[in-house]
């Protein structure tokens, strides 16, 4: 091929610009550590990364849901344990009252039971950290239980204002759980009631009120025949609730662990997809730089020479 002055310079410039472009790409890879940045760099990887990011962001959300639900579940667990103590105390009083004749003693017991009822109403109106009532089903904005009292301040009846449904939240794709509890459910269907449930026969408030009334009136036989077995059903119901709460907490914990593992796996996958192999990039960059230098040097050497230098 005939090499003219123009062909030399066009080829030289083309080679240089090619090497410059390659150098700039590698340099960019080395500084950012990424081999894919724009969708055009690798459309398939971009597609995958966008989907992985969506998953990762959903996982972060699930993790935050789990934290939130765990908080509510812990609040519920504390309330349930206190409720268990109340029912146990009442059972004990009922058992002891069976062998007592002294009306003074019985009226002391009655006062104690009165206090237990007050405490139970308070527990029924427990709020979680966000100010939501936890025993009102999905009616979380209003106190679930209102107590009616007689002239002497004794609670005569407790009304449930909540409903019988619970709101479920997602803790994994398609997996929903609820940290809300229903205070009373006498419909025979749906979430079980903590204080009263027609299916287990539990009815804490009415049983406590009946116990207090029997203690006041000294009707010890009714206490042992009616109140003691009823309270035992109440206690069983609370224990069932506590263990259900335990299951909920361990489900949340397991889901949390899975989500964390999954987030790590997603991060690794995204990094593998997009991170540049630095050793390889730097080696290539080094090679390109050498070629660039050689091109420049040889170009300058050849271009500066001409027949003119040797003509006198």
């Amino acid at each position: 091929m005939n090499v003219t002055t123009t062909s030399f310079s066009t080829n030289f410039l083309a080679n240089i610009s090619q090497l410059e472009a390659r150098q700039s790409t590698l340099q960019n890879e080395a500084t950012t550590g990424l081999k894919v940045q724009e969708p055009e760099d690798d459309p398939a990887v971009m597609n995958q990364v966008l989907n992985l990011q969506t998953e990762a962001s959903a996982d972060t959300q699930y993790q935050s849901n789990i934290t939130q639900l765990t908080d509510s579940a812990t609040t519920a667990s504390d309330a349930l344990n206190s409720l268990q103590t109340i029912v146990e105390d009442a059972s004990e009083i009922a058992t002891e009252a069976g062998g007592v004749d002294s009306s003074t003693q019985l009226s002391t017991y009655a006062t104690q039971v009165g206090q237990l009822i007050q405490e139970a109403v308070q527990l029924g109106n427990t709020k979680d950290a966000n100010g939501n009532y936890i025993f009102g089903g999905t009616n979380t904005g209003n106190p679930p239980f209102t107590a009616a009292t007689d002239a002497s301040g004794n609670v005569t009846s407790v009304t449930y204002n909540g409903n019988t449904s619970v709101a479920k939240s997602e803790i994994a794709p398609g997996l929903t759980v609820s940290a809300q509890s229903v205070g009373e459910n006498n419909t025979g269907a749906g979430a079980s009631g903590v204080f009263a449930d027609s299916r287990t026969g539990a009815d804490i408030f009415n049983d406590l009120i009946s116990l207090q009334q029997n203690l006041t009136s000294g009707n010890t036989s009714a206490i042992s025949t009616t109140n003691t077995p009823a309270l035992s059903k109440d206690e069983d119901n609370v224990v069932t609730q506590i263990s259900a709460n335990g299951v909920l907490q361990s489900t949340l914990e397991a889901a949390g662990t899975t989500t964390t593992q999954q987030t790590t796996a997603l991060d690794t996958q995204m990094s593998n997809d997009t991170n540049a192999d630095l050793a390889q990039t730097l080696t290539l960059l080094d090679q390109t730089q050498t070629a660039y230098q050689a091109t420049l040097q040889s170009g300058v050497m050849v271009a500066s020479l001409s027949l003119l230098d040797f003509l006198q």
Partner: protein
Amino acid sequence: MDLGSRALAVQQQEMEISGQNVSNVSNTSYAEEQLNIQESTPLETPIGEEGTGVQATSITEVRDALLDNQIQAEGSVTSSLTAQQTNLQNAEAYLDEQISSTSSSTTPDSANGLAADLSNLFGSFESLSTDPSDLSLRQTAVQSAQEIATQFNQVSSQLSGVRNDINTSIQNDVTGANQDLATIASLNQQIVAAQASGGTANSLVDQREATLEDLAGKVNISTSAQSNGAVDVSIGGVTMISGITNSDSLKTYDAGNGQLLIQAQNAGTPLSLSGGSIEGEITARDGALASLQSGVNTLATQLITNVNSIYFTGYDLNGNTGQDLFTGTGASDIGVNSAVVSDPTQFQASGTAGAAGDNTTVLALAQLANQNISGLNNQTFSENYAQTVSDLGNSISTVNDQLNSSHAVSQMLTSQRASESGVSIDTEMTNLIQYQKAYEAAAELITTLNQMMQTVVTMKSS
């Protein structure tokens, strides 16, 4: 004497041509010129033919018409691809879906585009589902909805901007192409005139070749050289220049909704182009950009209808129902119901009136994230958007590859032409020395003849 002076004249002309060649060494559209010389007509003498020296016959340039045509054609391809690349990369930038690594971690992250906004929207619904009555969570959900709506509006208007820019470029290129056509016709006229009077018009031919290449960059042309020196040009089968007449020119027309296409001004026929920046602009606009715009728009439309159809049945904290969350019908006009923006208690999260803790509606909204939407080819919102983004990436990456190989071909052709028609300073210098020596020798011949004449004259007078 005459022989000597003719030799002097020819050598001088040779040197002038060399000078012209050296002066144009960096002019890429210049083709090396040559002085064609031959022996002048000999004298018949009784003892045989006697030479009368040298004469110049013509100045020609070293041009390969085939190579020129190939360079024009490849120029059309390169410009078309460059136009596509530039415009699609603009669109890509506006989508704002880059992967960047944050300094704190090696995990890639892209937090600006619609992908992140979609995740945030469904994330805020998830959050709200854990505590549906919480005002700050309601506020966040409304904000996320506003953010994605704004982002849709922005992307939509930016992509329309790219489309408008393309149409402006098409207009400008058409104007430029018409100017080139006029220039070529007028150059044709001058070349024909020069050649008719027996001369050559090398510099005009160089200019015309440069203009033809500029025109080929805008639109693919086919040329045919005429014997009188003119070059006929036709575009898309319609003759634009015939001899010295600029018989037709290009014109844009609106095929509907601002879709500018090209037709021949006088012939009135729509032209289907296969190269040049105009074709590249049209391809980018009606191909990848159009599908990107419709992808984003469909996503917005589906988001509006799917979210609203669930949201509509929900109840707000005041027990009211029957409002929409999103207003509008597509990416350009999507917005958030102003009532819920000013009062987040009106966010219809609950499935039952009067149950603040009920999250049926907002949970269903959150679960939309993982649902395959029939209007989106049974993909989820995020999957569909990722597909749209990677489709654009694919288009650009294909153009990039094609452009690389087209550059390589152009480069090869240009270097071939440079090798054939280009000027080599070394060759010219060597020639110059040759001409100089020949000139000296011819001058010496005249001096010698002169001295001989002197001798004869002196002889007679003495």
